[in-house]
């Protein structure tokens, strides 16, 4: 079997996870993508806008709704030729899963060695002791956050109270750092000073 036939055969049985935006007649609008044509005999019944479903594409690129399964491919994998209305700019993000975003924090040598290091985020109205970080060594702390793909979480670093919030090199309040929800995302934050330790 030639490679081209293998690809076509694989596509014929592949499931794709989509979020339908609308379904009208034989047209299915896929969020962040384009418009698919439904297979013959398939109706819009059971398709709820905004609720994820799986679709199988036949060799002509026509879609048949299926039960969601864990092996469904992301929307971005749908062949562009399957769309009867294809976007000029296609979205390439798969927001179906949680991803791990790692934050490394390097603290100054003057940090009291027995102090814990915390993240403070907008999620708790900036509670200064929101999430305790794990210690890596004397001056290195780490936290792995599980975030939805595409997430952006603003955070600051503290030693557990507002009076011990991080300061920048000029000893002024720095803007919030941003942790992003992308696979294997990683941010390193170097703390020059603390509010209570110059």
């Amino acid at each position: 079997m030639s490679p081209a036939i293998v690809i076509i055969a694989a596509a014929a049985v592949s499931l794709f996870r989509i979020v339908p935006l609308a379904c009208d007649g034989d047209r299915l609008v896929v969020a962040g993508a384009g418009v698919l044509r439904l297979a013959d005999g398939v109706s819009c019944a059971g398709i709820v806008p905004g609720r994820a479903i799986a679709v199988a594409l036949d060799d002509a690129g026509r879609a048949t709704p299926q039960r969601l399964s864990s092996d469904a491919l992301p929307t971005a994998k749908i062949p562009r030729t399957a769309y009867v209305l294809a976007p000029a700019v296609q979205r390439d993000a798969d927001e179906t899963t949680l991803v791990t975003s790692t934050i490394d924090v390097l603290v100054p040598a003057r940090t009291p060695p027995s102090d814990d290091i915390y993240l403070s985020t907008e999620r708790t109205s900036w509670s200064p002791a929101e999430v305790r970080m794990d210690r890596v060594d004397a001056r290195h702390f780490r936290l792995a956050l599980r975030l939805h793909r595409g997430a952006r979480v603003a955070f600051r670093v503290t030693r557990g109270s507002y009076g011990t919030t991080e300061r920048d090199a000029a000893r002024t309040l720095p803007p919030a750092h941003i942790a992003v929800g992308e696979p294997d995302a990683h941010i390193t934050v170097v703390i020059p000073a603390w509010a209570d330790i110059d």
Partner: protein
Amino acid sequence: MRAAPACVVFAACAVLLPGAASARASASLDGGTVVFFSDTLALIARDGATLTLADGTRARADAAYIDLKTDRAVLAGHARVVRGSEAVSADAIALELDGDRVDLLDASTGVSRTTRRLGAATAAEFDAERFSFPDVDDRSAFIRSRHATITPHADVRFKPAAFPTSIGGLPVPSYLYTYATGAGFGATSLAGATFDQPYGLFGTQTSLTALHARWEDGPGPAVALQQQVVSGDDAYAAVSLDQPLRGYSVHGFNAYRRLGTRYSAEADASGTIYGTVMHGALTAAFGAAGGRMDYTRTTAGASSYTASLRTPDEPLPGGLTWRLTGSTGFDAQRGGLLFELPDAHNYSTVWRKGLDLFVATPVVHVPFGATLATTVDAARTWYAFPHAFDTLSATATASRAFSKKVTLFAGYQSTWSADIYPGTQTLFYPTPITPLLLPDGTPYYGYAAFTGARTFRSQNVDLQVTPDPNTAYRLSVVHTSDFPQFDGFGRPVWEVRGDVRFRPFPNIGLDVGRAYDFAWGGTRWQPRWSFAITP
């Protein structure tokens, strides 16, 4: 808090408050179900969605998604937007909460574009990004509601609000979620607490009024009210009233302003039935070096002032760094500072100057696969009165990772200090005539040897296990060996502490700590709890 400081506090807030009052909600979202995801700031309405904008525009659809990061909305399925007598319909519509652009997606004809006036639409490029809709599991939502009112770049109010978990939800009639990122929203004028859960009452892009449910060391349960006024990352003011259920109330004030790229100014105050403490500070940066001025005053007549200059962290061979800090200032007390002297009233203000040398090693690899970092700090303060105060501190922290999930830490900290009064040492540190009696009645004979020199030494061993990103266990044992220290006087000799951070439900994490002090002060063991809820 006395009248004068209180007037200063409220005048400062009044200057900033007009800006805070100008922001208002610009959109509301209703649905059979409205779910909110705090990490992506995604707001989704299902089972029939209605979006109402401040200019009177109303939109309906089967479902709707609002991205609070970009203030864009996507209406999905049988979407219709109405403004006055004008209306447009499409299979999906994308619009901006504060912008003019409206994109219409028809499954048969493609994309067309109009404005918020909803005039005739013209054919447009199909940008899939504008018609995105998140693929999320509603069970992991942070908040579930039926109505949300949005103030862009500031907050969302949910009515009602439930916090779904795998075992049900905890509903409240109304909940204000603030996602403004200005540094001042993290500021507080409340004292630290074992547990502090804010509950937003009113909010704008530049202000937040919040009720705090607290558990404080000593008084126990407390309720506090705090008002924050914020100007981006450049300035803020916070005023609070903290009222424990048992005990006296505490008033607090805290303010900050950046003065250009080099300078910043801070002020804070705290008042109780015993009086008020006020503090102001000015910080300056000169390249990597810097300076600071602090002034503190109490209503009991005490005050102090310190001006300090520090060098940058300068390199030494082997990766070591050093830094020198010089300071000068005074301590003052109405009626006399050195009350041990018969002519104490002649010493109501005593000036001082000090030097502090700090040396740190980098984190270095040592045998057995471990790392080690150490610091040494030596400081002396000279006073205008024959008096000096010396401190010498050293720390060492070692770590050994046995795997990616298991790490062992060991630490040693030591501080020696001496309060020296040449020729008058016995006047300031007299030998007790009778032995010091401790709380349980035990005499502490060894205290007679204390003549102003103290020693604090502690050793700790911590075992940290992190089986997955959401879970961490830590067991710590701390031993102290100080002077003076004896049977309830000073720090406990042994402490064992356990901490667990875990996520029992998809959208709620817990951090629980438990500590025991052993055989100290007549009690066999003294347990302490710490507790925190994380999203």
